[in-house]
């Protein structure tokens, strides 16, 4: 009896994997059905649907990058404190002092790559007409996931707290000042007033809601940190689950009828 065979027959192995190795047709089906991580897939699929030249694997890569971002992000959270005093120094220490500082590079490049792969996934889905019935609503969820990906990247952009960060966020959030009715420099904000007092000022408008302050400051850093590390990832995880579930329920990867 070989070592692999011995391990496979041990009680521990069989308690984890409840079926023989996927060497024959039956067990290749069973492995998909009984494994939690693999059960996302159907047991079988059309050859044209899973062809790399058809899907470009962009959705899968995007999901994988999301996992990479989660993993590296959690590691970075051990080293990073979102305060004016420490944010910048902690990031610099990741570069200069910390052995695993490359996690920051992987996190940042992975984030850029994820924005690009989301677009290319959307591009592919459009070009194959895969948003057409019955998959209309999954496309809508996909657009929401695109927005959330951009917001994840945007909120993360602030955290290094260097010149690049705060001015990019300042420029990016300045537009919220001009929100119609709800921004203090937007058209129609004067209409929202009570007894001659404006309800919408620079301390109560849409931009203030986003930044937690009149300018990008410590409150913003805290707000963006929580959005980046907790709030948006939770929403994204939920939507990803729905997105994948609907792919399955709508008949799998789109193919000609």
């Amino acid at each position: 009896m070989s070592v692999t065979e011995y391990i496979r027959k041990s009680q521990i192995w069989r308690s984890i994997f409840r079926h023989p190795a996927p060497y024959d047709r039956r067990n290749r089906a069973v492995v998909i059905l009984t494994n939690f991580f693999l059960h996302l897939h159907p047991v079988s699929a059309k050859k044209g649907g899973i062809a790399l030249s058809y899907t470009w694997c962009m959705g899968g890569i995007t999901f994988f990058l999301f996992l990479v971002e989660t993993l590296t992000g959690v590691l970075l959270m051990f080293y990073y404190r979102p305060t004016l005093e420490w944010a910048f120094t902690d990031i610099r220490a990741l570069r200069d002092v910390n052995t695993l500082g490359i996690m920051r590079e992987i996190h940042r490049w992975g984030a850029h790559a994820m924005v690009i792969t989301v677009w290319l996934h959307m591009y592919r889905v459009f070009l194959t007409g895969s948003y057409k019935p019955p998959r209309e609503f999954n496309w809508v969820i996909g657009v929401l996931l695109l927005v959330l990906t951009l917001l994840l990247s945007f909120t993360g952009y602030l955290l290094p707290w260097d010149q690049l960060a705060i001015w990019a966020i300042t420029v990016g959030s300045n537009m919220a000042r001009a929100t119609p009715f709800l921004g203090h420099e937007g058209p129609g904000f004067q209409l929202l007033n009570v007894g001659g007092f404006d309800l919408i000022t620079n301390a109560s408008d849409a931009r203030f809601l986003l930044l937690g302050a009149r300018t990008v400051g410590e409150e913003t850093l805290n707000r963006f940190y929580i959005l980046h590390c907790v709030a948006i990832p939770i929403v994204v995880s939920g939507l990803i689950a729905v997105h994948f579930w609907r792919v399955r329920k709508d008949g799998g990867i789109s193919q000609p009828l």
Partner: protein
Amino acid sequence: MNPHPDLTVGVIHGLGWLYLLLFFLNIGWSVRSFKVDGQFEDILGFKHIPKAFLWAGYSALLLLVALVHFAVQSATSAEDFVLRLPEFIKNPADSVIANPISFFCLSIVIYIAIIVLRKTWVKPTVSWILFNLSVLFISVSMTDYDFRRIVGKPDNVPIVGMLFLVGFTTWLFFVKANENDKRLAEGRPVREKELSDQVLVWPDLVYTEMICMILITALLIVWGVALQAPLEEPASAVKTPNPSKAPWYFLGLQEMLVYFDPWMAGVVLPSVILVGLMAIPYIDFNTKGNGYYTFNERPFAITTFLFGFMPLWTGMIVLGTFIRGPNWNMFGLYEYWDSHKLEVLNNVNLSDYFWLTFLELPLPKPDPETSFVSQASSILLREWTGILVILFYLFAIPPLLAVTIFKKFFVKMGFVRFMVLANLFLFMASLPLKMVLRWVFNLKYIVSIPEWVFNI
């Protein structure tokens, strides 16, 4: 010592590696060409010369170029290195790129060429030549200090990668769409239909995913080691950098600020883009082309989407990243970012044109002492031309489209769907229209009511 040298030993050696890589790729291509491309019948009396010899000769040239790069060892020989972008090309190239009119015309020409010449440019040899040209463009341009500074910025490197990926995926799309269109014209089933037999996901899909994950991990590690994530000076609320740029994926929106006020460019238009994207499945009534690549079965949908994706979105990210410099002026790719560069801006409102130029009367001025109604009527009197234009654009054009060129659409879609489509279309067209109006008439605002912070 020149603090901004066009060429250093390090740069030259880096380019040497790039040429070496291109050499190996072209050796591979020569082998492919030898197998499939056939022969020239007769060249200068030589019979039956394989076409692959051309590629082999080109590869040999690339190898020679790479070796010449590696031979450079000292700083002085780097400064005198001959293989560099000549100065007489830089200025004309810059003046084309750094001008909004020629930049957008160029991007529109490329967009139209991609669609009209879709049968030609995706042919293997043609697209390989295009790929080689784009790599050579980058490697030759890298011999310019200013180009290297802007393209080599760590956060800009992914954008260069994205351009190649967009090019590659578009190529792949047209290759597959052309094939399917040909099949459909001949009445045969599309290629995807022939691959409709069921296969087990383990191993056929699971292994692909595994390989993808390994490759992406390797890519991220190599990328992370090779290129350090940017970290500038500590944040300072008093030192405003010039230019101040939003993150790169929002630079298309920032670019719209040149043509629209923030409430339009930053709030209304992005919202319309998102609503428009979500609305696509509900307004596209064409049931063909579901689940396979095709162009001829849905030309309108694909042409429109490509217009939004290529010249508008990708093109404006390129513009915002590589070309917008200090004071949001446009700079050529080989141009020094001079913060004192002056561009004359003399933009005029439509109401100025109507009252001052056409009627030669002063603008009606609302008197802040009077009642709201009299102020409002004075403002409306001043701006009635622009308001009429906007109302016409939003409310008269959709019905006009419905009874003329889009009649078939209107009949098939019904009132609500058609109006949604037409308005989304008009919003998308509003950006290029405003650009043209700005360039041709120096038009600033069609409706300008600074009193109510309402400018269009």
